[in-house]
């Protein structure tokens, strides 16, 4: 079992990386806390994997500094960083058995044969591979290979475990199972986990914090609920899940937040309007909107007409068009959706003031 406190604390300071004229990472500063589960989230080419490779020591940053527990490791080669790493596609040693794969980092560290045996045995048990010790990677299923990769990366008790899209090759049910297992391993080992993914639901489900990347820039870091409910910009808002964007005019500060005109009706927002004045975008998640029979003066709301619905089992996704032509999607109980559709003419869309947030108009 991992000693608490062995987990590493990492500090990236102004990290940048260029490949020729391509700017893969730009002026990235990020503190990764001891024992934290941080997800690097972004589309492909956003710089998240480049940052992970810089953390691992496989890629040398063009500028900036990297610290581990206060020690500058910017120029330390990968083999001396002692970061565990799980690669996309696992990168197991094909000529070594499960046991030999897991023992590799211990052999490199010249541990005694008895220690290697006991730690490999413990690790095999912990990831549920008992009975498969003598098999070669090619004889294992995808999920089992994944477990070997995790065991191999954790057996030497690294201060940080780096994971590069480890679940991308697994089918959906297996992925859910492995995610739960990884969460458990994180709690058991107490190690700092840095996890790269482009799957926003995976990021929200697993991490203690999410760092969102796009075009080589770190856009926002925060707890899953923070980045989901209060995205810093339009890209983050859209990347984390479906979201409705409504133009608002004449935004100005008001009691408890801000106020403005949406579809010619006054709407209230709980967020501060200092940074945003005049025209802006009001963003609301589909699950935060509901359908009301009629307008109410003290609640945010606009008129819209239901045009289509998608049955999702637990709820129905309803597509609507507002009077001014904006498209809105809401997630509502099945019977509400049916009623709204049958009504044909306009319904009333409402949302609580604290669920709508303002984004700068246009651009990112």
């Amino acid at each position, binding site marked *: 079992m991992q000693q608490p406190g062995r987990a590493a604390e990492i500090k990236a300071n102004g990290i940048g990386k260029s490949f020729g004229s391509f700017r893969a990472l730009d002026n990235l500063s990020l503190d990764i806390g001891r024992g934290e589960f941080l997800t690097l989230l972004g589309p492909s080419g956003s710089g998240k994997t480049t940052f992970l490779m810089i953390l691992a020591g496989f890629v040398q940053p063009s500028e900036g500094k990297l610290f581990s527990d206060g020690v500058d490791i910017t120029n330390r080669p990968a083999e001396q960083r002692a*970061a565990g790493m799980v690669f*996309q596609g696992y990168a197991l*040693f094909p000529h070594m058995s499960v046991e030999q794969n897991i023992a590799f980092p211990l052999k*490199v560290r010249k541990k005694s044969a008895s220690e290697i045996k006991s730690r490999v045995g413990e690790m095999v048990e912990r990831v549920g591979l008992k009975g498969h010790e003598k098999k070669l990677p090619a004889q294992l299923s995808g999920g089992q290979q994944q477990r070997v990769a995790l065991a191999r990366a954790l057996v030497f008790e690294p201060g940080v475990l*780096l994971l590069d899209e480890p679940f991308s090759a697994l089918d959906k049910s297996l992925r859910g199972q492995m995610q739960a297992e990884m969460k458990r391993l994180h709690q058991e080992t107490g190690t700092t986990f840095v996890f790269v993914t482009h799957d926003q639901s995976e990021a929200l489900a697993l991490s203690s914090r999410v760092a969102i990347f796009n075009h080589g820039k770190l856009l926002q870091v925060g707890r899953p609920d923070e980045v989901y409910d209060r995205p810093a910009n339009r890209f983050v808002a859209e990347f984390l899940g479906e979201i409705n964007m409504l133009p608002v005019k004449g935004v100005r500060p008001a009691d408890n937040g801000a106020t403005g005109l949406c579809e010619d009706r006054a709407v209230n927002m709980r967020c501060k309007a200092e940074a945003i004045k005049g025209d802006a975008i009001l963003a609301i998640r589909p699950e935060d909107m509901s359908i009301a029979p009629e307008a109410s003066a003290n609640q945010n709301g606009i008129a819209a007409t239901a045009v289509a619905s998608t049955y999702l089992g637990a709820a129905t996704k309803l597509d609507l068009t507002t009077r001014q032509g904006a498209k809105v999607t809401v997630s509502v109980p099945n019977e509400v959706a049916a009623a709204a559709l049958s009504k044909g003419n306009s319904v009333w869309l409402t949302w609580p003031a604290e669920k709508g947030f303002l984004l700068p108009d246009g651009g990112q």
Partner: protein
Amino acid sequence: MRGTLSDRMGAALLMAPLLLFLVLAYAWPFLGVVKWSFTLPTPGLGQYHALLTDDLVQSVFIRTLRIAAIVTVVSVTAAYAITVVWVRGSPVQRVLAEFCILVPFWISVLTRAFGWVALLSNRGLINTWLQSIGFISEPLTLVRNEFGVIVGMSHFLIPFAVFPLASAMRSLDERVLLAARGLGSSRMRTFWTVFVPMTRSGIIGSAMITFVFSLGFFVTPAILGGGRSVMIAELIYLRIFQSPDWGLGAAISVVLVVFVGALMALLFRYVKPKQLV
């Protein structure tokens, strides 16, 4: 290999001229050689019996196997180093390595053998140079012996040994090497415990090709061995063209072909043909 029936028919048609040529130029005459081995000078297994008892034939066989084994080790080792540079070096190193691999193919085997004579003979470049710097007083015997044969044959075979190795190294997943380093393994250790074992099929293919080629070498050992280090192909030549003992020459040929065929069969049990190119 996948493909529709007509695809396969087309491929068979395109290969037909080559197959026909091989049958007419090799298989058919070889059947004649097999016939000689059982009929000359008298019908029976006499030549195969002689082959098992003749001291000269036996010593040539053993020398051939020994030289082929040494040449294989030397060639595959040298080819491995060149291939690492060719496949994994910097762009400039790659171009240089490729040049070194391809240029020998453009120079005739005769030219290369005589080139080695010029370098290795008693009054050749190496001996004169070593004498001029006072390193040796008497010239070293570097040629017209087994050493010369091994040098010349290895030189010829290294480029052939490169291709199966290159194929194995190219198909290797780069991330596995990164994984080894990330787990704390030094570059040296990663090379020996991960890179080399993962290119095993290339090493086997390369060694087999080199060994099989070595067994049938004629020109290079004839020139660089100077008649003192006769290999099996030269012995066959001598039996057929100089001492009219066609039966024995034919029997040796048959044994050589069967032996090489068996080695190839063994090779293809471990390596797929496409891994060799």
